[in-house]
């Protein structure tokens, strides 16, 4: 007897199913079920994953969904199980779900109407469902008569051959009563019977997960969920024999499953997706229009088109013609054109930078011909997928403008953001499962705090140990339940989010390809698949990513134009030795990509002198090159401390530019092609392996083939081992060269702006924060060391953003109101509007004229000294406490016309002026930063007496000597590549001191290292060509200031 399970839900039904599609597929393999249908609720979220895994195992995945249908949507609307029979059916299902979803806001119950069901019924098969299905609903509402009426209506909508009366047997009497009526009605109306098990989980034990999900959904605990929980655990996958036994009285119900399955011809293989055609002006061919644009762009980009350029462009265009990708390039070109016309900075990154066509279309800014980049990395005949173009845009409004342009251009149902499936991770699992089991909030806070707070994980750090660290007894039965649930729900989908920038565009209607849903953000739709699912089904995606640095660059250019009177052409920034000198001396705080501590430590050693050097610089601080020792060898070779050698002469042309070291993904692909005789398609498989989550295993699987190829090319065992090591280490993530080159361009631009237009760049940085590696407090201290002057927030002068002011010939930076903590943007706008009428002449005047500001905001303004100028308009001096005293009285007054013009006499307070320490504390409390000296600076004399070296002094200490450094902990890191070593960056008034805390010292001084703001560290200096680290031996806390200074901890 054969049986096909035609009704199953996965965890992609979001809390209404407890099986990952992989687990269901595994169950099908194990129980020898040749096919299965996945019918998630109101969506096909899990179908791509299910299709993929079933296909891999030679099984068939039927597509369908349980769609809520009711004329008035409620949470209890019946769910109609709909199976897709044909491609038309899939399109209808997708449009039915989209129509339903887009009608309501995100996360509100919605249902299709019967009219819509009729409209989109073609190509679908309707089952009568389980206890949440239409038949049970009709029986509940009107008994057998109503049920008969329903079946007649379904027959009418779907046609008699497309309605199956569904029977499930979960050993429940009320279900059996329903079944008896269903069988009677089926006989009466000549409808086929079909047996399903309404699968919600692969094995009976997984019922526990479903119960937990039910509790999360209903916001209750297992103890008080009562009858919300399932009555038994029978909704699991069953073998054909078990099902046949269960339905031995109705054998046709079993055989009908096979018959119906054979009629369901549709799978996700034939999705019917088409990339949108670009509307060519004058109705010409896309490819001709593209060629024209490319050659036009080429003459602008290159001026003189050499043979080499011509050949490359022709080769690329021929391939684009062959693969019919002209429309895609034109669509991206169109977005770029929109950005240019609207003065929005945009830059292509990723593998698109390998294409000269992209360069000519101004999609990318890197010349791939000059850089000798590998075009095949971007596009190749062998690839069964679309090319990938990522566009970096300034974060915020500009990016949103572009996204909205794409929506306008292709219509709300022709484009959607890709989804981001948020899955259970250790913390979220512990929190939610803990709640379900009835643990208190405090315990759960503690538990999520103890779970995975640092990137580096001790290999012995089992869940049980982490639980114990949180103070929970892992031997306790309920804790064991918690641990078990946590482990089992890991990686299960929790809810659907929105991908940060991926957009899918489709010819015609995208809603026929994948159901669309409303996004939380107004004016956006999101499709039901994430980027991996979309990619695996061949949907083309354009990533519109937000990059804070681009926003800063854009703002800098505007500020330079306004305040320096200069136009900056970012595309043609000169190669400036001063900029490279600054970069090489690691003076890069605030620049893009090369500002992190690891980057700064390697900059003097790499000593970049040109754009390509910067490209390598960007690429070396990645987990792949670091773990594979490529970074170390490269830096030694750059310094001439190690000879440039090649594993084999065959590799020399590939690795020459990177001194014999593998730094980029393209190099690996070339090595595979040249040294191991991989075809382009095989190299492509390798590329995918390198980019995948299970890259290490996949690279390992390709190893025999690599070795045999290398043996054929004469590489001996040792040489082969070296090459394999490169592959393995790259599996841990390294950059493609094109991507690094794109980033290097932005890095150079930011460094250039910082060196030549410090005020403008710093202003733009502060306005675009949060971004980068440093807190504004550190950025400001760094800029001050470079001579920039700052002015405090002032209600009579500051805008919401930071601005530049001219003081004589000097440009100073005025802090914006955005830096006053707790001050709402709306309040700031009120201040600015009122100030534009006339300036505030006293604190009372301010309080009265801007009554919308609450007392807490007023106090913050007073503490930050933003009200100082209002109190000093008659030339007298007042201090912050005067303002505090006054806002406490006048704050919250209601505007009253009778009080207009009344001058308050009390301008001063009986309070004492703040001390230096008070002011520091106040600065950090109100703005999170200080424009005065760094707190360490005030204590320098006493610190010196304690034998403590400043950041600058530490760089003078010879290698191997003992020294003591101290400072504010600006950053703590425990990266996954460092085997438990912690990196602490101490900041003082002279700069930074880099501390390395070995694993054993971390363990010894854990509490001090992690909890204190100021630290004194004694250790051995490692001075390697000016790159100085202090290898910590002891760490003690230091009392410097009570100011609430923040540290940037990478958890």
């Amino acid at each position, binding site marked *: 007897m054969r049986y096909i399970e035609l009704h199953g839900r996965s965890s992609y039904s979001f809390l209404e199913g407890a099986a990952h599609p992989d687990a269901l597929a595994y169950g099908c393999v194990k129980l020898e079920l040749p096919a299965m249908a996945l019918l998630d609720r109101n969506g096909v979220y899990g179908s791509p994953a299910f299709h993929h895994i079933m296909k891999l195992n030679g099984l068939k995945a039927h597509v369908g969904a349980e769609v809520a249908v009711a004329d008035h949507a409620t949470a209890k609307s019946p769910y109609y199980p709909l199976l897709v029979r044909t491609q038309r059916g899939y399109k209808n299902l997708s449009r039915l779900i989209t129509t339903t979803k887009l009608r309501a806001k995100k996360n509100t119950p919605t249902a299709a109407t019967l009219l819509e069901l009729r409209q989109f019924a073609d190509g679908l098969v309707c089952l009568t469902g389980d206890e949440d299905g239409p038949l049970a609903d009709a029986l509940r509402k009107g008994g057998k008569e109503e049920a008969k009426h329903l079946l007649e209506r379904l027959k009418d909508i779907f046609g008699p051959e497309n309605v199956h009366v569904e029977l499930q047997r979960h*050993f429940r009497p009320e279900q059996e009563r329903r079944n008896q009526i269903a069988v009677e009605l089926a006989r009466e109306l000549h409808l086929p019977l079909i047996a399903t098990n309404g699968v919600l989980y692969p094995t009976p034990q997984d019922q526990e997960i479903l119960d937990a999900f039910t509790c999360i959904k209903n916001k209750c605990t297992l103890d008080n969920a*009562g009858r919300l929980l399932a009555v038994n655990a029978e909704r699991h996958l069953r073998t054909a024999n078990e099902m046949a036994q269960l339905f031995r009285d109705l054998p046709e119900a079993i055989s009908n499953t096979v018959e119906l399955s054979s009629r369901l011809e549709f799978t996700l293989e034939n999705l019917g997706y088409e990339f949108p055609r670009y509307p060519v002006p004058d109705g010409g061919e896309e490819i001709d229009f593209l060629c024209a644009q490319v050659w036009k762009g080429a003459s602008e980009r290159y001026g003189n088109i050499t043979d080499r350029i011509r050949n490359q462009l022709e080769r690329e265009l021929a391939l684009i013609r062959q693969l019919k990708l002209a429309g895609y390039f034109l669509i991206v070109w169109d977005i770029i054109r929109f950005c240019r016309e609207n003065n929005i900075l945009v830059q292509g990154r990723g593998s698109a930078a390998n294409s000269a066509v992209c360069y000519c279309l101004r999609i990318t800014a890197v010349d791939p011909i000059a850089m000798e980049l590998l075009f095949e990395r971007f596009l190749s005949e062998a690839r069964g997928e679309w090319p990938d173009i990522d566009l970096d845009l300034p974060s915020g409004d500009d990016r949103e403008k572009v996204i909205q342009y794409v929506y306008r251009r292709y219509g709300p149902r022709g484009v959607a953001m890709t989804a981001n499936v948020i899955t259970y991770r250790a913390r979220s699992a512990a929190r939610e499962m803990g709640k379900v089991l009835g643990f208190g909030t405090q315990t759960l806070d503690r538990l999520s705090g103890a779970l995975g707070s640092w990137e580096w994980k001790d290999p012995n750090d089992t869940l049980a140990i982490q639980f114990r660290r949180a*103070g929970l007894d892992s031997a306790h039965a309920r804790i064991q339940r918690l641990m078990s649930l946590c482990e089992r729900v890991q990686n299960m989908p929790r809810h659907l989010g929105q991908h940060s920038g991926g957009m899918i565009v489709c010819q015609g209607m995208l809603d026929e390809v994948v159901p669309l849903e409303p996004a939380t953000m107004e004016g956006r739709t999101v499709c039901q698949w994430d980027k991996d699912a979309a990619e695996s089904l061949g949907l083309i995606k354009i990533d519109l990513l937000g990059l804070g640095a681009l926003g800063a660059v854009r703002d800098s250019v505007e500020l330079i134009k306004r305040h320096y009177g200069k136009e900056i052409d970012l595309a043609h920034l000169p190669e400036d030795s001063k900029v490279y000198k600054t970069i090489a001396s690691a003076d890069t705080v605030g620049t893009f990509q090369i500002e992190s501590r690891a980057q700064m430590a390697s900059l003097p050693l790499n000593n970049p002198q040109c754009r390509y050097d910067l490209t390598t610089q960007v690429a070396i601080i990645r987990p792949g090159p670091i773990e594979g020792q490529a970074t170390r060898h490269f830096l030694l070779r750059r310094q001439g401390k190690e000879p440039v050698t090649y594993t084999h002469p065959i590799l020399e042309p590939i690795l020459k530019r990177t001194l014999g070291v593998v730094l980029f993904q393209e190099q690996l692909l070339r090595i595979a092609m040249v040294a191991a005789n991989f075809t382009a398609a095989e190299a492509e498989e390798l590329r995918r392996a390198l980019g995948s989550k299970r890259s290490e295993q996949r690279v390992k699987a390709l190893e025999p083939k690599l070795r045999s190829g290398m043996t054929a090319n004469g590489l001996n065992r040792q040489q082969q081992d070296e090459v394999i090591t490169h592959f393995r280490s790259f599996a841990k993530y390294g950059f493609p060269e094109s991507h690094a080159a794109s980033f290097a361009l932005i890095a150079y631009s930011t460094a250039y702006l910082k060196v030549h237009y410090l005020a403008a760049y710093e202003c733009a940085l502060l306005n675009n924060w949060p971004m980068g590696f440093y807190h504004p407090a550190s950025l400001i201290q760094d800029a001050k060391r470079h001579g920039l002057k700052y002015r405090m927030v002032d209600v009579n002068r500051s805008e919401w953003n930071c601005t530049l002011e001219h003081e004589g010939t000097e440009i100073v930076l005025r802090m914006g109101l955005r830096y006053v903590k707790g001050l709402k943007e709306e309040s700031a706008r009120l201040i600015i509007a009122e100030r534009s009428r006339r300036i505030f002449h006293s604190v009372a005047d301010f309080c009265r004229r801007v009554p919308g500001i609450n007392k807490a905001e007023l106090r913050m303004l007073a503490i930050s000294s933003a009200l100082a100028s209002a109190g000093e308009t008659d030339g007298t001096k007042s201090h912050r*406490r005067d303002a505090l005293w006054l806002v406490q009285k006048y704050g919250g007054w209601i505007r009253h016309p009778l009080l207009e013009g009344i001058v308050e006499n009390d301008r001063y307070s009986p309070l004492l002026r703040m001390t230096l320490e008070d002011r520091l504390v106040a600065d950090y409390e109100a703005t999170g930063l200080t424009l005065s000296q760094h707190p360490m600076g005030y204590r320098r004399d006493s610190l010196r007496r304690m034998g403590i070296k400043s950041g600058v002094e530490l760089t003078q200490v010879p290698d191997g000597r003992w020294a003591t450094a101290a400072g504010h902990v600006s950053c703590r890191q425990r990266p996954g590549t460092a085997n438990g070593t912690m990196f602490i960056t101490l900041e003082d008034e002279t700069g930074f001191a880099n501390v390395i805390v070995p694993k054993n010292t971390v363990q010894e001084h854990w509490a001090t290292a992690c909890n204190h703001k100021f630290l004194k560290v004694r250790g051995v200096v490692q001075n390697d060509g000016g790159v100085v680290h202090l290898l910590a031996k002891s760490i003690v806390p230091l009392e410097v200031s009570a100011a609430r200074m923040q540290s940037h901890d990478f958890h």
Partner: protein
Amino acid sequence: MLFTCVFVPFFPIQTVMRNVPETSQSKDKRPELPVALVEAGENIVRVVLCNEAASACGIEAGMTKTQAEQFGALIRDKSASAEQSAQSALIECAFSFSPRVESTAPGIVTLDIAGLERLFGSPAKINSALQAAAASLGLKVNVATAHDPDTALIAARGIEGVSVVPQGQEEQCLGPLSIDVLSPSPEDREILEEWGIQTCKDLAKILPVPLTERLGQEGLRLWKLTRGELRRSLVPFDPPRRFQEVAELEEPVELLEPLLFVINRLLENILEKLNARALFVQELHLELSLDVRSEDWHINQARHKEMPQTFERTLALPVPMQDPKTLLKLLHLDLEAHPPHAPILRIALTAEPARPRYTQGNLFLRAAPEAEKVEVLQAKLRSIVGETDMLNRNTVGAPGMVDSHEPDSFKVLPFMASCSEKKALPAPQSEEDMLRIYRPPRSARVRVARDAPVHIAFSGISSAILQSSGPWRCAGSWWKKKWEREFWDIELRLTAGLAQYRIYRDVLTNGWFVAGKVN
């Protein structure tokens, strides 16, 4: 008027530490030990308070016990009972000096010492004596005397050891103290901190009108406190009355009747006392001292010697009562149901008093039996059927629904005073469908063939099963005590005719039971 305040710094810590046996450290050194108090949440133990020495080590409130242990401090559990007993001891100690004592707050007592100079000497001497008395209780205290209770309290909070604030010099004496001694609200504390006001002197300097304009009446109150200008009356401590009667018996009593005779007398005395204060009984506590060594009794009972020497019963009443007959009857029934295991030597009867409950009669309320009668009836029933069943459910009360799939799950709730809400009538149920449930279910022997029961034997019935329908499976509570059952509806031919039963198999124990009979 003259008031003295006794203040115990880090009161919860001191209360715990005073009961710790002597260590190598002397008693006065104890507060210097780093000590952190922890309190257990449901699974996590956190620091709730630590003394200065512990703070200096790096311990902070909110840390977990494990974290705090790393700093080498003494970790102790916070104890409400220790605090209560220390407070009582402190009050007792204060009463030994003055008849007017106020239990101001935990760890703080204030005494009216006006006129005590003749007895104990000057205020300074009284303070020292109080300090010494507190030290003998294991508490290190600050003692301060002033002309109003608040000033005395502030001085005791802020000044270590003993101090006397002379009248008229309050401002000078309190001036150097931190404003924390005034216990301002967190919001006011924040504002004052921003203003740079650290001490009482700083606050006292500000003019009251502008201060009131900014901080309102609370600002003015704080200002007056700094100047010793607030006057309030002491709220004398009224020790809780104990309503207890004890009777020592000359001969051990073995029988219930003479025992009840004595209990009745004690009860009447207690009720008389309660009546005088217009109080009723909320709870009756009976403690009987037993003569477990009685030779005769041992011979009779043939029990071994390790027997508890006291026997205790508590009657918690649903409503406060005062009727001696009812109360005696309840005690009678309770003792009948739970007889003491040895002759009685001593009887102690204690009543927890409560104010009588006055309820307005409702015109539409159905007449219900008096609460006393209901209680007596329930007690009678309990004495017959026992208090709880094998599932630890009450045996007497009103059945209540349980939201569970577990078949026949219900709870038994105490009878509540009837409410005016109308109860919905249950839906009519056809007689044929009715299942008469056996409680407890009857054990059965079932023979199974081809996954279905074919023969059953239970309660003297042994029959082939004519028809069966099932299994119907249900399970639940997997996260605590799992249950799982398989139900069958069966039909048997008995001599009286056909009969239907519902039977089930407990999957976990594999035992068969008859759940009930279908009518």
